[in-house]
């Protein structure tokens, strides 16, 4: 620790802190223009200069000068103020002073400092800057006339986002920020540059001329897209959202956002929202009153239940329902209908998250203290960009080493020390191969293995076959690369393994999660911050919906349905018997509908016809349903088949909580009144229950959470009264300290057989990878015009070599067919795509990638043909 004096105040700060940081900690404000805590010190604006007694004769920049023992600092004096004023005058000479119509007006740092220092006249004069304004870039407008060259956009884009789109070009008085050759932006469009810009040089085009900064009311809530759970602020004016900002206090994101969080909120206010209940009359969906609709739902469900029993009813919910709603939904099915047939899209992946992984989740902030990363089956920079930023910071700013294993040369591969391009679907062999090498070379953490784990001998036995040469054959990774990666991974002190789950990643998540957990445990990466396995669910509440028991075999907690005492506790609390038999999973529900054993389906926010594999099969299955009720924001393909459509409120129109991938429960606050006649999902579930003659209790989220807390031990401490903007990290002893708490953590035994993807056949020579793009999440983001302005349509990503062999050029129309279906799509030739595999994002209605996929198969094999004029 270092002791110094700032403005006659004794300050104690940690080693390495700058004067500015030391002052901030002591509550002393030093003005800045180019400093941001997320970025490396830059020292360009010279506003933060201070006087240091030990450095007499000059002014010292506090942002880039480390505090030292005994330093005596003054943050304000006549000379300092004079210097700051002069710097401001210099900046204001060419600045256009178009504050009346600048969108940063009211929250502009230059404006605020000018006011603070009373720079009412300028002793210097010159022509105003007159560069052309860049109106061509999507989403971000660039007006370099207002730029103060603080370099924050350039630095955040490089150091945090890792896109390096901006640079300073030219030099001296001609310096400006630009892209290469000054072309319009073609980047990730996260808007971090626009957000960090202290002046109006980079502005949010969606916010342009919408409101003055002081007119808006900010409502703090949580982003509705991925499971990062970024805390956001929605700015409202005249009952409309005019922009979304990252919440600086947010524990998951520290103010950062990606394109989806910043620009994707528009779907909430879309004109295509369903605003009234619809009931199918004479074959067409016609507007109805809530009474009619609820009546129809009750009758439809009751009829099936009476005819075929409660087991013929099933429910699928979205992983975007709040915890309270997911809880009420499964309660509705279990306690009112009497079936465990409830699942959500996370169900495809939840087994890995809930049952495969014996380790507690990692905290995102701790990722920045990791020194090794293994990113496998996870394009984290695209699916969870803000978590990706943390990896960027650790690798680019703090020197952590990165191992990336992915068939596609994903963004993180650019920064990786080791990049392993394995064959699609061979992750388990690869992880086992790494563990095998570590154990045979004696690189494991013996002390940890002996003290905290059991089953090492069985593990060793099961790994015998995973020699480098075996793994090379299975995965296509050269043996020496595997050994190098294993050594690199084992040599770290804190290693994080990052894996993603979701619709884009078929496969056995539980096995994968167990392999990853083994690897973490043998290297001693458990029980310390930043070490372990980070399993990233796809949607905003993928993790919460499992916790809430919206899955067939778990009750809220999550607690195992199979255990009698658990079931009895819930039966007592709910006043209804709970079937001991686990319910059906998503796939089984669809198969059941096809075979006729499922007759009624309740889809709450779920859109299987667009998001689930094998669209044709799902459509046929749904066509056979006696009764389909869909609770939705939009008239999705699934809703179009429904007998009753119930209009639901969006995330911005309700209160509630989401649980993110690190196990943080965060609070949603209602920003808008519900659109039209829509109601929150919670209210609808309660009303449906009432129409069925049962009482689900209050739909007030706080009351529901109180009920959850009383029944789910993990949520015991969660209460609306104490939830702050930082949320509540689920971290009871049984959870976080699992490896130590019970004496020794158990090694789950490995599935020895490698799940080997079938070899490509002559008919279908390509492997189809279906996944998420950076710009979209699920199918909801396709309703946001801002996002669609940069990524409007699915494209087939194909390797240049493969394209050449098939005579395909960029933007050619191609036909892709699998055993399941066929579609036509525009081709995009891209070097990051590995040979022999093609990629299609699944978000879009047309062309819909899921038409090609089959739920039964691990890998989708396709053939690709160029569409010629005649074949069109």
């Amino acid at each position: 620790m270092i002791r110094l004096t700032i403005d006659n105040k004794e300050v104690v700060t940690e080693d390495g802190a700058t004067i500015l940081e030391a002052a901030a900690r002591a509550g002393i404000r030093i003005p800045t223009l180019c400093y941001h805590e997320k970025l490396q010190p830059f020292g360009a604006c010279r506003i933060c200069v201070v006087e240091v007694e030990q450095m007499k004769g000059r002014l010292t920049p506090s942002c880039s000068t480390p505090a030292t023992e005994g330093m005596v600092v003054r943050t304000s004096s006549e000379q300092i103020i004079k210097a700051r004023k002069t710097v401001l005058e210099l900046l204001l000479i060419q600045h256009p002073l178009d504050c009346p119509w600048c969108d940063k007006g009211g929250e502009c740092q230059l404006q605020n400092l000018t006011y603070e220092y009373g720079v009412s006249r300028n002793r210097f004069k010159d022509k105003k800057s007159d560069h052309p304004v860049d109106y061509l870039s999507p989403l971000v407008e660039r007006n370099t006339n207002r730029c103060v060259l603080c370099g924050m956009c350039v630095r955040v884009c490089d150091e945090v986002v890792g896109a390096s789109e901006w640079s300073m070009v030219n030099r001296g008085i001609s310096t400006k920020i630009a892209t290469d050759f000054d072309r319009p932006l073609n980047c990730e469009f996260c808007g971090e540059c626009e957000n960090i810009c202290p002046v109006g040089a980079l502005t949010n085009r969606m916010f342009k001329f919408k409101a003055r900064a002081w007119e808006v009311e900010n409502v703090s809530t949580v982003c509705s897209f991925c499971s990062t759970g970024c805390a956001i602020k929605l700015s409202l004016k005249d009952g409309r959202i005019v922009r979304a900002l990252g919440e600086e206090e947010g524990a998951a994101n520290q103010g950062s956002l990606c394109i989806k969080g910043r620009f994707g909120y528009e779907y909430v206010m879309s004109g295509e929202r369903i605003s009234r209940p619809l009931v199918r009359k004479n074959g067409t969906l016609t507007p109805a009153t809530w009474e009619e609709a609820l009546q129809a739902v009750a009758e439809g469900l009751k009829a099936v239940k009476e005819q075929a029993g409660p087991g013929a009813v099933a429910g699928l919910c979205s992983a975007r329902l709040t915890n309270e709603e997911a809880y009420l939904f499964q309660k509705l099915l279990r306690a009112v209908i009497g079936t465990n047939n409830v699942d959500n899209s996370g169900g495809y992946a939840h087994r890995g998250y809930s049952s495969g992984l014996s380790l507690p989740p990692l905290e995102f902030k701790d990722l920045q203290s990791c020194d090794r990363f293994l990113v496998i089956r996870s394009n984290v920079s695209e699916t969870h960009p803000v978590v990706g930023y943390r990896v960027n910071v650790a690798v680019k700013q703090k020197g952590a080493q990165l191992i990336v294993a992915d068939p596609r040369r994903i963004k993180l591969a650019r920064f990786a020390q080791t990049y392993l391009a394995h064959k699609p679907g061979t992750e388990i062999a690869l992880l086992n191969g790494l563990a095998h090498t570590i154990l045979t070379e004696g690189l494991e953490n013996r002390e940890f293995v002996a003290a905290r784990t059991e089953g090492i001998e069985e593990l060793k036995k099961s790994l015998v076959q995973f020699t480098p040469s075996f793994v090379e054959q299975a995965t296509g990774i050269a043996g020496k690369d595997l050994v190098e990666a294993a050594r690199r991974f084992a040599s770290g002190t804190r290693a994080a393994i990052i894996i993603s789950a979701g619709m884009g990643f078929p496969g056995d998540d539980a096995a994968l999660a167990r392999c990853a957990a083994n690897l973490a445990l043998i290297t001693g990466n458990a029980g310390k911050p930043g070490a372990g396995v980070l399993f990233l669910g796809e949607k905003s509440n993928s993790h919460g919906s499992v916790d809430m028991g919206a899955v067939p075999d778990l009750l809220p907690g999550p607690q195992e349905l199979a255990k009698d005492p658990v079931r009895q506790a819930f039966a007592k609390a709910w006043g209804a018997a709970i079937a001991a038999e686990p319910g059906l999973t998503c796939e089984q529900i669809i198969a059941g509908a096809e075979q006729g054993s499922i007759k009624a389906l309740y889809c709450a926010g779920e859109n299987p016809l667009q998001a689930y594999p094998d669209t044709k099969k799902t459509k046929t299955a749904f066509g056979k349903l006696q009764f389909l009720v869909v609770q939705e924001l939009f008239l999705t393909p699934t809703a179009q088949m429904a007998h009753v459509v119930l209009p639901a409120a969006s995330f911005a129109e309700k209160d509630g909580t989401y649980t993110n991938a690190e196990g943080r429960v965060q609070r949603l606050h209602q920003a808008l009144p519900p659109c039209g006649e829509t109601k929150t999902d919670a209210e609808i579930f309660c009303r449906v229950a009432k129409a069925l003659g049962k009482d689900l209790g209050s739909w007030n989220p706080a009351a529901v959470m109180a009920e959850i807390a009383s029944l789910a031990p993990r949520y015991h401490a969660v209460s609306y009264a104490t939830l702050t903007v930082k949320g509540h990290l689920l971290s009871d002893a049984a959870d976080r300290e699992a490896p130590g708490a019970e004496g020794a953590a158990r090694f789950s035994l490995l599935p020895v057989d490698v799940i080997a993807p079938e070899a490509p056949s002559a008919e279908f020579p390509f492997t189809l990878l279906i996944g998420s793009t950076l710009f979209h999440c699920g199918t909801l983001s396709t309703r946001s015009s801002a996002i669609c302005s940069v990524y409007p349509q699915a494209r087939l990503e194909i390797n240049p070599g493969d394209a050449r062999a098939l005579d395909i050029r960029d933007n050619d129309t191609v036909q892709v067919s699998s055993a399941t279906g066929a579609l036509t799509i525009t081709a995009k030739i891209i070097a990051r795509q590995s040979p022999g595999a093609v990629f299609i994002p699944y978000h879009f209605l047309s062309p819909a990638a899921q038409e090609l996929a089959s739920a039964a198969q691990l890998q989708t094999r396709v053939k690709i043909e160029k569409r010629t004029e005649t074949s069109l």
Partner: protein
Amino acid sequence: MGTSLNTVVFDIGGGAANGEAIKAVQTGGPSGGCLPVSKFNLPVDFDALYDAGSMIGSGGMVVMDESTCMVDVAKYFLQFLQDESCGKCVPCRLGIDRMLEIITDITEGRGKPEHIPLLQDLADTVQQTSLCGLGKTAPNPVLSTLRYFPEEYDAHIHQKRCPAGVCKPLITYAVDAEQCKGCGLCLTACPHGAITGEKKQAHVIDPQLCNKCGICADECKTHAITVN
């Protein structure tokens, strides 16, 4: 090291080649300062030159005679420094630009009395707050000439006159009728046709057409061309 400037300039260097009086020495490269003859007793060492407002810097010296305008010298070095500024920090990027602009105004007759304290102030801030050595020393040409040659700034600002006859917008060329023999050399040499006159009669320069190139003065054998 330690040798006096006098020794370097007059004994070792031999003074001005054309025999004119020496006015100043500029030491330390472009961001050094200009020292007048009255300071030539100073030894060439780090502290002495620094205290006097210049520096050893690159070790180079530029010795100037009375035909040099010190305001113009400051402008010349500022132009160089403006080119060299990388543009990262505000005071250097914009401060040098402003100092150059003000000095240019002074050398072109637009100088105002308030420019002197303004220059002084700005130079202080640039020196105090710039990020690297370039910005911290960039004001030296301005500060040292303001310190040792204030009368030259005064002449430019108050009398709109360049005593050394260097700053073109402030000077006029004329023919001294008494000295002029009417030989016509200047008339034929003038590229702008600004000189008229009959043979053997005193010639006249039309200030409207004169471009102040000085060719006439160079051509004249009788030193009849005057600069004011």
